[in-house]
């Protein structure tokens, strides 16, 4: 019963939020630019959730999710350019990434802890270098151009993207939540807690890790698959190690092992990153004027975003090492208990 009530509430609130956003978009209160950030936040949340599944819940630190994002994005981009219908191209991108995750996971998941982190980091970089060097297929260093969008009219591509990305994100949230709150999910968490005991309780830890890693790759690939027609142009530089680290920061900030924490910090950090990017010039000028320099600014805030994220992490590790929510979840039923 509790599960049903949760599901109904989730579906109801998700639908309501979606409807409100749709109204705000169609009336122009959310402009095209904000919409673009909103979609980016949705995609970031999907990748961060996939990372949380393998790192937060299963306890296997992975540092190469930008690579999975890239494989999903490039696969779908190439399929779309080859005139494959949109839904098929998106599904194809996600499935190709899942297959890749399975193939990488097979040898890599025999490693523990730090070693897996290093291998996934390496794989992420290998993917990026391969993309640069497979010029005929991927456009190489100059990028993959002219990917067909969600809409034929480029002016309405962002609203069209929103109609795809948000339902997909809700679906991913629901599926990951369902996975975690099942016997399979309990087995995954038990691996994080104590591998030896988990094995001794009959859990096939290698099989479960591989499942978790493959599902994680599928979700990250799906986010990439939606990213390609959303942005229309893919460059390998956008899928570097720092991108992977950005997803790790989202997960750590929200709490390793908290879905709602990941969603909150995903939205927060996407907007923060965007604010740092667009306001960099203004801020650098005002900071510079504080120090008595002439307007025009000598401090560049764009690379400063990495410094700020680093600082946020350090502060977090000192005052709240388990992340904003730790392993807890914000539960809708709790929110509504008072109202009855």
């Amino acid at each position, binding site marked *: 019963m509790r599960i049903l009530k949760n*599901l109904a509430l989730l579906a109801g609130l998700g639908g309501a939020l979606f409807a409100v956003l749709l109204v705000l978009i169609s009336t122009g209160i959310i402009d095209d630019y904000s919409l673009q950030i909103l979609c980016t936040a949705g995609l970031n949340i999907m990748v961060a959730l996939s990372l949380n599944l393998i790192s937060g819940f299963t306890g296997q630190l992975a540092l190469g999710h930008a690579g999975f994002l890239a494989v999903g994005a490039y696969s779908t981009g190439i399929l779309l350019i080859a005139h494959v219908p949109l839904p098929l191209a998106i599904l194809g991108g996600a499935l190709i990434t899942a297959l890749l995750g399975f193939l990488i996971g097979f040898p890599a998941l025999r490693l523990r802890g730090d070693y897996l982190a290093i291998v996934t980091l390496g794989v992420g970089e290998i993917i990026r270098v391969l993309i640069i060097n497979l010029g005929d297929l991927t456009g190489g260093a100059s990028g993959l151009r002219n990917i067909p969008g969600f809409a034929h009219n480029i002016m309405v591509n962002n609203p069209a993207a929103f109609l795809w990305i948000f339902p997909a994100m809700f679906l991913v949230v629901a599926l990951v939540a369902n996975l975690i709150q099942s016997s399979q999910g309990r087995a995954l*968490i038990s691996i994080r807690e104590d591998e030896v005991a988990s094995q001794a*309780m*009959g859990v096939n830890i290698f099989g479960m890790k591989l499942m978790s890693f493959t599902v994680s790759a599928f979700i990250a690939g799906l986010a990439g698959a939606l990213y390609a027609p959303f942005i229309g142009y893919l460059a390998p530089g956008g899928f570097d190690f720092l991108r992977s680290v950005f997803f790790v920061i989202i997960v750590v900030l929200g709490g390793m092992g908290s879905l709602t924490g990941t969603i909150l910090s995903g939205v927060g950090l996407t907007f923060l990153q965007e604010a740092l990017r667009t306001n960099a010039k203004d801020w650098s000028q005002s900071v510079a004027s504080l120090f008595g320099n002439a307007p025009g600014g000598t401090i560049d805030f764009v690379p400063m975003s990495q410094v700020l994220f680093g600082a946020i992490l350090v502060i977090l590790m000192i005052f709240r090492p388990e992340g904003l929510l730790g*392993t807890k979840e914000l539960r809708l039923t709790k929110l509504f208990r008072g109202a009855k």
Partner: protein
Amino acid sequence: MTPLLSAKHLSIQFGGLRAVHDFNLDLSTGELVGLIGPNGAGKTTVFNMLTGVYEPTEGTIELDNGRGGVENIAGLPPHKITRRGLARTFQNIRLFKSMTVWENVAVARHFLVPYNLPQALLRLPPFGKAEADIRREIQDLLTIFKIDGKAEWRAANLPYGEQRKLEIVRALASKPSVLLLDEPAAGMNPQETLELMDLIRFVKDEYKLTVLLIEHDMNLVMGICERLVVLDYGRTIAAGLPAAIRANPVVIKAYLGEDAVHA
């Protein structure tokens, strides 16, 4: 009658160290056998070989497969051995600390769960029914062991004695035929040890189990074990009834040194 579990000529070598040498043990259904010996004798190593944590260098472990035959389980991975009916607890408690009490127990019956991953992801009907059954079954199990009131507690927050108890309950949830207890009374006071002895007897009779336990607490060992095997430096130095072991000069020497025998 053929034994339920039969370890034959088990040896394990770590580099130049032969930690266990030619270990033999037959366990018949319903027996309660104690494995004792001084620190470092290789008791836990024997457990780790029986449960698949270590692969024996030599020897076989034959388990009655319930269909009139035997299967050699030596070298199988731990989860496969557990699925064949050998469940264990650990010397240093290894609960899933941040999970709740009932979730800890639920992990041990994960491999018995009748629904698959797609059914769980899509919340199809088999899921709801199976989850309700799991909850009820675990609640019953927790009630028998009088920790049902703490089902939603985090395992790490249980008092020490109840953590030990929960490890036993968790092992039982995998529906084993053989239960291996690694120092179940470690860190318990005399009163708790007495309760534990009752608990072990109860579990053995209630679930028709065969129990092999490692223990240093001689009151417990002499009190409940029907048969003892004594290890020292990886070799079996004695085996037999508790009373005979207690009087065996070789055993006394292993525990207390040469002088004690002549004293």
